């Protein structure tokens, strides 16, 4: 059984937490004491029955203000998969926490309130899901009960999205009409919407399978650390890291970057055991047939399909800090296990708040804005385009004074 990571998205009060609570409740993933506590809390709020959103709002401020501030992680299994759900906040102020939750997702459940339609924040989330290339998007049109479960209202939302999609050109997505509070089309198909011929949310996610887009293309392993260990008279010297794409075999020729020295793999150790071949996603240590100076931040790659090597990149970023992006400031760029100083040499463009217009040469990019920029790094870096290799095509920017993570970027 495989782990599938799901993230919610959507504006405040669209029903994200309620949906997750309902999903867990209906698939019997909740414990008695959790339900008792929530029943008590629901009563305190004068809520009739169970307020499902209370299952995920875990911080005091969240409960007292009735909003989600940060991502909550929840776990459940079905007979088909094991799931990790990131329930993310919808409030624009906490977009960075939503990106935190969505960045690793295989599936995004994007909620749209039938009464509100695609507001600015939903559009922002859709745009971010598109940018991150989340493999599967499920649009859950929620609160169908408030629209008497009518098909017309549902189709209106679909139409609104299609308009937006002219620019995005998303292909892989599904629309499901639901009522989170009533559990309609969440786990079981509701009889209230006979016009809907599709699947329930749980059916959709159960049928999902991870397609290894990174398999057998480029081979990449950023080095995390070096392991030295005496074996008799000799010393074992292994380069430890996670194989983020492709596979490596013992005896295979590889290249070490940035030095560009070639060598042959002498051994691969995973969990202390010698293996012949390592697959994508494994944490391993690689020993080479010759002594090379390698340290954290370097990369071992296959000898074909080399990454791009440059000190200039063009990238689309989401800015995540109150202090706007400055072209006068130095930042730290972190890609894989490498960190290097950089400056933003140019803000090429940014999107307007409705994500239907591109503003050229804007003066600045502020919190939650999505901009295309040029970056110059102090040292050349090795990278891929995000479309061809996700792991080595993405980075974060760190403010060296506050140490805050200020942006997430994907390389074009």
């Amino acid at each position: 059984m495989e782990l599938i990571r799901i993230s919610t998205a959507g504006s405040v009060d669209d029903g994200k937490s309620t949906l997750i609570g309902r999903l867990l409740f209906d698939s019997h993933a909740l414990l008695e004491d959790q339900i008792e506590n929530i029943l008590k809390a629901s009563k305190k709020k004068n809520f009739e029955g169970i307020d499902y959103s209370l299952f995920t709002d875990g911080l005091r401020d969240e409960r007292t203000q009735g909003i989600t501030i940060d991502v909550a992680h929840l776990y459940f299994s079905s007979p088909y998969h094991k799931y990790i759900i990131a329930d993310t906040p919808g409030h624009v102020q906490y977009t960075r926490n939503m990106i935190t939750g969505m960045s690793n997702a295989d599936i995004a459940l994007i909620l749209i309130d039938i009464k509100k339609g695609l507001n600015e924040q939903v559009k922002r989330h859709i745009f971010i899901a598109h940018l991150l290339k989340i493999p599967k998007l499920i649009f859950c049109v929620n609160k169908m009960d408030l629209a008497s479960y009518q098909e017309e209202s549902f189709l209106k939302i679909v139409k609104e999205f299609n308009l937006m999609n002219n620019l995005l050109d998303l292909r892989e997505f599904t629309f499901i009409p639901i009522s989170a509070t009533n559990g309609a089309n969440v786990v079981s198909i509701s009889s209230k919407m006979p016009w809907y011929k599709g699947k329930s949310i749980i059916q959709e996610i159960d049928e999902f399978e991870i397609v290894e887009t990174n398999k057998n293309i480029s081979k990449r392993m950023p080095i995390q650390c070096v392991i030295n260990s005496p074996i008799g008279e000799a010393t074992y010297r292994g380069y430890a890291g996670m194989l983020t794409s492709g596979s490596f075999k013992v005896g295979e020729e590889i290249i070490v970057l940035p030095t560009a020295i070639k060598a042959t793999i002498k051994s691969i150790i995973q969990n202390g055991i010698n293996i012949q071949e390592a697959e994508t996603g494994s944490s391993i240590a690689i020993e080479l047939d010759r002594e090379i100076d390698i340290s954290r931040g370097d990369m071992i790659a296959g000898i074909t399909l080399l990454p791009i090597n440059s000190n200039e990149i063009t990238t689309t970023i989401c800015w995540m800090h109150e202090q706007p992006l400055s072209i006068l400031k130095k930042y730290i760029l972190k890609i894989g296990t490498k960190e290097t100083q950089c400056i933003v040499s140019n803000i090429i463009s940014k999107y307007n708040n409705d994500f239907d217009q591109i503003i050229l040469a804007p003066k600045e990019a502020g919190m939650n804005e999505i901009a295309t920029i040029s970056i110059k790094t102090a040292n050349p870096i090795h990278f891929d385009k995000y479309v061809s290799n996700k792991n080595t095509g993405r980075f974060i920017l760190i403010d060296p004074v506050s140490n805050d993570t200020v942006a997430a970027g994907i390389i074009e």
Partner: protein
Amino acid sequence: MNYLDQLEAESIYIIREAYGQFNKPVILFSGGKDSILVTHLAMKAFLPGKLSLPVMHIDTGHNFPETIEFRDDFINKYQLNLIVGSVQESIDQNKAKESAGKSNSRNRIQSITLLDTIEKHKIDCALGGGRRDEEKARAKERFFSHRDAFGQWNPRGQRPEIWNLYNGRYNEGEHFRVFPISNWTELDVWRYIKRENIQLPSLYFSHEREVIFRDNSWIPVSEFIRISEDEKIIKKTIRFRTLGDITITGGIESTASTIDEIITELAEFKRGERGNRSDDKTSDNSMEDRKKEGYF
């Protein structure tokens, strides 16, 4: 890849990141299953080399004797470096004050000793066995969780944590808590313990013990608790789901004496893991409040 292999690979990645990014990382070791698991994974992460990170135990002085015995055997067997922070010492130095009340709990003041020990040894990263499925405030925690110069967690202002790019940069006096097994559930932990044949303290398996019934759970009788007249000491067959300070760790009635039996029992369970710890029952916010003060 099977999900246990996925979880294992992720945890090892996190541990290596902590090792690569910090000057002096340590592993928080309580003798409980989660910290044993983290130590086990950390040993794996550096094979065939030796684990160079020390393990750190915050000793409340109110231990199960079995835990201390297990700790010492474990340290010996794997030849690890042990750092001990003593709550008794903090009390003797007037840095901490024991709470009154019948449970005489030292749970909360552990945070003082923990932060003191971190400062004394110039530790900039403490790897803990916290899991997000344990509790609601923990469900909000990052893998790399920043602590300010006072050791405080600021849940409202956590750094974004995007992809697998962990930002462990900090200013003078601050430190990080890193949680490599964040994404493991209690059942995952047990399945992995079985698969890897990891040794645990005997307390996790059912045994007969003298207990009293307090706060809805079976609290072990020890020299550290005050037993009031209306509390009756009886013998029960119990086991513990979590291990902590002996004065507040409640056992559950169980006959599960092997890992297989525990896994079967868990699959049928209806109550959460921390439900038998009186420290977590004080209020809906108790974990968050303690975490803000620097708790594990």
